[in-house]
């Protein structure tokens, strides 16, 4: 009877009272009293969600608040806050990653888990997972209804409508528009079971092509895979604690243990991890995540442990184990080929130097962020400020142009970006600078060389044409050396060209 397209197992959890229960859990509303969550819709205050006690009184979402108060005078009402509700739902989604990495939220009040293949490894059955999940939700003060199905839609509909078989679902479970639902009911088709045995083609002709597709999904005949909340790393190891871990001190041992288990898997693929994620599942549903990245592929457990030690030390908020972590999982979302041969010694030791520094660079990167460490990379650019850029430390090496032999340094050691405005006295308007004032200090130029003319790269900007720069290397009487430029050719581009200080020489 049940034509299963696959052996997939999904579990859906519906949280019918999420907006109300999270207010009760926060202490914003008393438990066991009727209240409503309302929102202004088309000029009228309408009920969006209800507390369990209010639902028990026969109130329903979508009622106008005025109508509800006619039935229950003095019904308290809270404004709707979908953002916070969503955040609570996503917390539940994250916490459910303990069962399977394939978890997705559905709508504002439900989530669905792909449990396919999850049972034998962890020693669970689908019933124990459902029981465990609802018990954990109850501890958070949330009432959850779990249901299983061969497709996500079937599981979700069974959980939402609280029925045990797809045949008993109302036609509203098709989640089509209200008119279609009404038309189906008028035709005497009240349940999915009534629709099941009808020929599909006339149904499609009458109610649209969507209907048979939805029907097939509800009946478990056609699968629709879910998109998990977080892409699942394929390389992962996890550890469940017999006793919740209430202090952070054994954490590094756990991390090293997980890294040891991943090491053989990575070695088997000839790969090393470039990024390692550790998720710590707390008994109360909170999930803490730690991530480290490294500059080269890595699979050495002690090295991974050191990186996580660095990450733990650099946390702005230290980890709070609360009532304890009961599970830890390490994933490798980014892995790369890892050469096991020794590094090439023929490149003058440069590559070796980089390999030697890699653990240090990784540690500093983890601790201070990836942007704190950089190397220089030459760029084929005309304007001096674009001639070099910062690249991550693990980038490939590249040759730099060799300076002209015999010449003193023609480019400064420090560059101002943007250049600093200075006021300059020159003998003639298009001549070299004689004196300049910078930061209220006067400098007398005793030696100069220039101009070195650097034109605006007009070939890149056909319509825009910027002023030409005339660069001078100058030295003042104390021996300080500066790089100044005049912006704009006197007489041709500007009558009063501005001067800028662009750099400092040694």
């Amino acid at each position, binding site marked *: 009877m049940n034509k299963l397209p696959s052996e997939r197992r999904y579990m859906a959890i519906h949280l019918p009272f999420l907006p109300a229960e999270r207010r009760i859990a926060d202490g914003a509303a008393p438990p066991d009293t009727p209240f409503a969550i309302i929102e202004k819709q088309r000029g009228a205050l309408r009920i969006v969600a209800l507390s369990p006690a209010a639902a028990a009184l026969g109130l329903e979402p979508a009622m106008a608040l005025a109508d509800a108060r006619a039935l229950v005078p003095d019904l308290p009402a809270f404004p709707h806050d979908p953002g916070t509700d969503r955040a609570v739902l996503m917390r539940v989604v994250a916490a459910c990653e303990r069962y399977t990495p394939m978890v997705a939220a559905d709508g504002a009040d439900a989530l669905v888990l792909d449990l396919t293949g999850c049972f034998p490894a962890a020693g669970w059955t689908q019933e124990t997972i459902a029981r465990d999940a609802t018990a954990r939700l109850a501890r958070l003060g949330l009432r959850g209804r779990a249901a299983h199905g061969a497709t996500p839609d079937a599981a979700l509909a069974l959980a939402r409508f609280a029925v045990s078989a797809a045949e008993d679902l109302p036609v509203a479970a098709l989640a089509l528009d209200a008119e279609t639902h009404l038309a189906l009911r008028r035709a005497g088709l009240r349940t999915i079971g009534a629709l099941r045995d009808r020929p599909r083609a006339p149904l499609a002709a009458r109610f649209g092509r969507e209907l048979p597709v939805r029907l097939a999904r509800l009946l478990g005949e056609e699968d629709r895979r879910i998109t998990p909340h977080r892409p699942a790393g394929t390389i992962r190891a996890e550890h469940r604690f017999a006793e919740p871990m209430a202090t952070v001190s054994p954490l590094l041992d756990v991390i090293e243990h997980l890294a040891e288990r991943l090491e053989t898997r990575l070695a088997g693929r000839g790969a090393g991890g470039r990024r390692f994620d550790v998720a710590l599942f707390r008994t109360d549903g909170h999930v803490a995540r730690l991530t480290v990245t490294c500059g080269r592929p890595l699979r050495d457990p002690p090295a991974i442990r050191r990186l996580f030690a660095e990450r733990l030390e650099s946390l702005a908020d230290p980890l709070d184990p609360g009532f304890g972590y009961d599970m830890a999982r390490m994933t490798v979302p980014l892995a790369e080929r890892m050469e096991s041969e020794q590094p090439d010694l023929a490149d003058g*030791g440069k590559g070796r130097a980089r390999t*030697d520094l890699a653990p240090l660079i990784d540690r500093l990167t983890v601790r201070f962020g990836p942007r704190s*460490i950089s190397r220089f990379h030459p760029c084929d650019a005309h304007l001096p400020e674009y001639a*070099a850029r910062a690249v991550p430390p693990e980038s490939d090496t590249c040759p730099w142009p060799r300076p002209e032999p015999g010449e003193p340094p023609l480019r400064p*050691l420090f560059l101002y970006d943007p250049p600093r405005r200075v006021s300059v006295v020159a003998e003639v308007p298009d001549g070299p600078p004689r004196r300049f004032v910078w930061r209220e200090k006067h400098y007398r130029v005793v030696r100069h060389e220039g101009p070195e003319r650097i034109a605006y790269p007009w070939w890149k900007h056909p319509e825009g044409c910027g002023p030409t720069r005339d660069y001078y290397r100058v030295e003042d009487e104390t021996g*300080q050396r500066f790089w100044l430029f005049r912006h704009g050719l006197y007489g041709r581009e500007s009558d009063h060209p501005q001067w800028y200080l662009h750099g400092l020489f*040694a």
Partner: protein
Amino acid sequence: MSDSPNLRRASMLVPGPSSAKVAGALGFGVPAVDRWLKGGLRRDGVHEFYAPSDGEGAGATAFALLVGRLICDATLPLIWLRTNRGNRNERPYAPGLAELGIDPDTVFLVELAELADLLVATVESVRHGGAGAVILEMQGRARPFDLTASRRLALAAERSGTAVLVIRGKARPVASAAHTRWQVSAAPSPALPANAPGHPVFDLRLLRQRGGPEGLHVQLEWNREQAAFRTPLYGDSSAVPARGTEDRRRRRAA
């Protein structure tokens, strides 16, 4: 057994108290200076380079980088740590490094906002031992860099054999565990034809040398092609190391 080629090769791959680094002192190749320093700068020491009072100009930084490059033998990496706050967008410029004869490819730049973090990163870098030299550039008073912090650096330097070169801009000399302390500023260069600025010249005063004399005052010119310092030749007269009495008066800063 230790002569086995395999073992020797393996030991070259092990990072740590670097086998590739040459032990001993870095001589400047200028007899007057090397005699004064009893051979040269310790390669496993802390050396401080102060820019005078309102330290504009890049003299002290350039000198420290060049010393670092000589200690590094041009191939070992150079780690340059600096704060990226309050330096008014004064960015290290790689083409300028190349023009000094320092391969920008060997330089790793670490820029952090907090001085305390910078000191942590510096100690880490020195302890690691994989770098040829570690350069710490600070501007202003730099209160966290106290006697304890500099002692920690000196210990780490001795243990890992890594030179630590500390640049202090806009700061007055304070007590520290440094092996040598220099005041560095730019000095007029011997002019090139058409009165063009010449090769970089540094005016150096040795303010302190642990277990040695101080008060050396000398001007050194950097020669990129030979990768060496030399005394500059100004037209007809050659510069003589000047050791006036006025230098003695200001030499005891700490």
